[in-house]
């Protein structure tokens, strides 16, 4: 008997004319690990919420949802709460109590589980997810990745049979995301828990799943074994961008043989596909582009900048040295705690380094009178773009900034009457960018501009940034999205323990690295985009 059987489910939100879901059918067997993917706004979240009765949105619903052969509506509230678990996208928003142990026990307390049983289950999940060290701590002291692991542990402590996750890694950095995904995979492999996870980053997740479900405009367009589904996606589909780099290269090269789902499989496939096994590093000879002209006055320059939060603390920035040339997009990469956000805050003048000089367009920060720095055109977009929003609608947000929608280099007319918090992540990013552009910056500072965005939205943001550069804007962004940096930036730098350890043009930057690099670059060294990789490999194969 399938654990979840959705039959011809249609759903229309109250007060909306068009249905959000149309005749959705899907079936999960016990022990399945299914990934649901599709563009933002295709109805993934609506579908997932309908499957968890407590979270079901208001509206009219047709069709049937059967959980273990029983209609979801007829489950007792206790069964519904305990047997179907749900993990949300933002780690912070689902935390209820002020201690990790209490968070793990919260669901069990609600169910009235006897104390002895509760102690066993809390101990089990804390160990399974490696939370022993954090047990007594406040959740707010944990990193984003640990928080999300705690949320997962808190839900699995209730021992659900079906676990639903709504883009759980969208807000995490790549390493934390991989860590989280392997915890989910372990849960699936070791306990046989059935998993249904919405994801738009398939790079690290797809090879762990045994089901891939594609959604588009409220319909399920394909479902089944990931390799078959990947092969069946039509060329040029918007969903293509979400696939792992190896899969995209495989499709670009004619989709012969077994479809690779991760970098390891991709390398194996390429080595079989290429007639001769050329040594990777010798394939590409990178030409150093020396600039003979005198360098222009940097838009931003850091000279021997050091910063720490307290006198006793460690330096977060250590004699940092770098120049940002006018009109370039510079991407700073680095792991958590490498000082990325601190660097940006120092550049925005939000924090003062204890030594060193920061110059904007040749003038020192001190020479700008308080507040006038921003009038000289330095603006920063924060990582959590929601913190920019103060008004109940996008229209008022724009009015508040003294901006008309027509002036923007992108179109947000269709969003004007919505509440900023109701927008999707990508839409919020655009409105936030609009607010930032309203102060007419010459130097734009971006903190994780693609956090939580799917492939097509990342493409849109990339387009916008390139357009701004064309107009002469200088852009400094910090990101852990190596692929985005590789495709968008003119130069990239790797920040490690407060110093820039490597700065180079993306092709060179990612070709050199073997660990901190993009999946495309791992498969075809010296290449940054999938299209480049496909061309290079074709050329090498002599086609």
């Amino acid at each position, binding site marked *: 008997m399938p654990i979840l059987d959705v039959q011809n489910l249609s759903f229309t939100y109250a007060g909306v004319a068009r249905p959000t879901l149309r005749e959705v059918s899907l079936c999960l067997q016990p022990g399945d690990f299914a990934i649901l993917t599709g563009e933002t706004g295709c109805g993934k979240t609506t579908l997932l919420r309908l499957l*968890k009765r*407590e*979270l079901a949105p208001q509206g009219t619903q047709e069709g049937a949802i059967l959980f273990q052969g029983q209609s979801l509506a007829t489950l007792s*509230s*206790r069964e519904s*709460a*305990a047997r179907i678990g*749900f993990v*949300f996208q*933002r780690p*912070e*928003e*689902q935390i*209820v*109590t*002020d*201690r990790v*142990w*209490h968070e793990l*026990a*919260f*669901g*069990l*307390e*609600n*169910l*009235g589980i*006897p*104390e002895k049983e*509760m102690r066993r289950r*809390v101990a089990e999940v804390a160990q399974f997810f490696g939370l022993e060290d954090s047990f*007594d701590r*406040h*959740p*707010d002291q944990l990193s984003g990745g640990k928080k999300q692991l705690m949320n997962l542990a*808190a*839900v699995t402590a*209730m021992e659900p049979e079906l676990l639903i996750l709504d883009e759980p890694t969208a807000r995490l950095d790549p390493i934390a995301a991989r860590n989280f995904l392997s915890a989910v995979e372990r849960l699936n492999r070791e306990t046989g828990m059935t998993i249904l996870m919405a994801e738009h980053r398939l790079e690290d997740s797809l090879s762990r799943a045994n089901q891939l479900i594609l959604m588009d405009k409220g319909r399920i367009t394909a479902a089944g074994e990931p390799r078959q589904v990947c092969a069946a996606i039509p060329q040029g589909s918007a969903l293509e961008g979400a696939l792992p780099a190896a899969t995209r290269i495989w499709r670009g090269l004619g989709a012969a043989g077994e479809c690779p789902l991760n970098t390891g499989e991709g390398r194996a496939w390429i080595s079989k596909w290429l007639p001769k096994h050329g040594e990777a590093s010798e394939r590409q000879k990178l030409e150093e582009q020396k600039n003979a002209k005198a360098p222009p006055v940097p838009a931003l320059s850091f000279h021997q900048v050091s910063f720490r939060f307290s006198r006793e603390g460690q330096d977060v920035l250590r004699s940092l040295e770098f120049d940002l040339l006018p009109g370039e997009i510079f991407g700073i990469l680095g792991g958590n705690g490498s000082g990325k956000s601190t660097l940006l805050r120092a550049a925005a003048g*939000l924090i003062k380094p204890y030594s060193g000089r920061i110059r904007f367009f040749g003038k020192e920060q001190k020479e700008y009178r*308080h*507040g006038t720095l*921003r*009038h000289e055109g330095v*603006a*920063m*977009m*924060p990582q959590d773009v*929601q*913190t*920019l*929003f*103060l*008004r*109940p609608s996008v229209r008022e947000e724009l009015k508040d900034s003294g901006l008309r929608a027509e002036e923007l280099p992108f179109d947000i007319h269709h969003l004007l009457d919505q509440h900023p*918090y109701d927008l999707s992540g990508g839409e919020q990013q655009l409105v936030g960018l609009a*607010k*930032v552009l*309203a*102060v007419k910056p010459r130097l734009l*500072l971006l903190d994780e501009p693609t956090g939580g965005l799917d492939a097509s939205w990342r493409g849109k943001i990339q387009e916008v940034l390139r357009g701004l550069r064309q107009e002469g804007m200088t852009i400094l962004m910090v990101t852990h999205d190596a692929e985005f940096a590789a495709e968008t930036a003119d130069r990239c730098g790797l920040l490690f323990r407060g110093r820039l350890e490597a700065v180079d043009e993306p092709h060179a930057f990612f070709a050199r690295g073997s660990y901190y690099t993009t999946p495309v670059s791992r498969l075809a060294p010296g290449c940054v985009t999938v299209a480049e990789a496909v061309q290079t490999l074709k050329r090498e194969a002599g086609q």
Partner: protein
Amino acid sequence: MGPVQSRHPGAVCVYFLCVLLPVIFGIDPLTAGTGLLSGALLLWLLAGHFPGKEYLGYLGIVLFSGVINPMFNHNGETPLFFLNSNPVTREALLYGWVMGMLIAAALIWSRCFLLMMDTDRLLTVMSRLSPKVSLILSMALRYVPLLRRQARMAREAQAGLGLIREENGLDRMKGAVRIFDGMVTWGLENGITLADSMTARGYGMGKRTRYVLYPWEGQDTLLTAGSLGMMLIILGAKWMGWIGYSWYPRLVTPAFRLPGIAAYLLFVALCLAAPALELWDRARWKRLISQV
């Protein structure tokens, strides 16, 4: 963590109450003095350094009370001298000092109590009384720092765009109002998602159980029963009139017969239990380490 602190918070609460009640409900130089001195010793041990400044504060309370009481309280039949044609009596002076010792002892033990009990421990005790209140407290305790952090982020977001100017008070106020606006929106949104998260995990389904971080152990029963028993004996002795002072109109000291002396000694033992346990624990660790 000390030997008293590692006991169940409920047992610790009972112990502190058993010390405080006899001190408070008998204006008695012996119990108040014992309480003050043992409390001072315990504070020294818990603070980890000699708390000279705090001692001075408590001494100040004793002296202050000793001065204030005879100035306003003219009961007592042994006048020492007259102030504004009112008698300043020996009884009122002594009473004031004892009262000061009593207050200082109560404060010093409360201070020790707070040093031992963090929010987790207090919540454990609270949740015994009311699981609902303890959950609300736990949520509130999480929310306060969360709000503060969100406010800081909202301020930085606006400052990063140069939308907050701080040249004069009016600008500063406008900035604060903007941020407050944003915080209200954020709070409402966050409230909805939080409610979702709670119902999704089965909140409001009826009878809750609770996860206890500190299980009750045999030693906790021993501590609770011991302190309660000793306190009852002391209060009983007071009720029987074996111990206790009477102040007005004339100072009457207790007779100091065997049951009375035993009750006082019992109180000394009760007060010294915590500092003695701390000292014993320290000596034990020293011995254990020197044996390694």
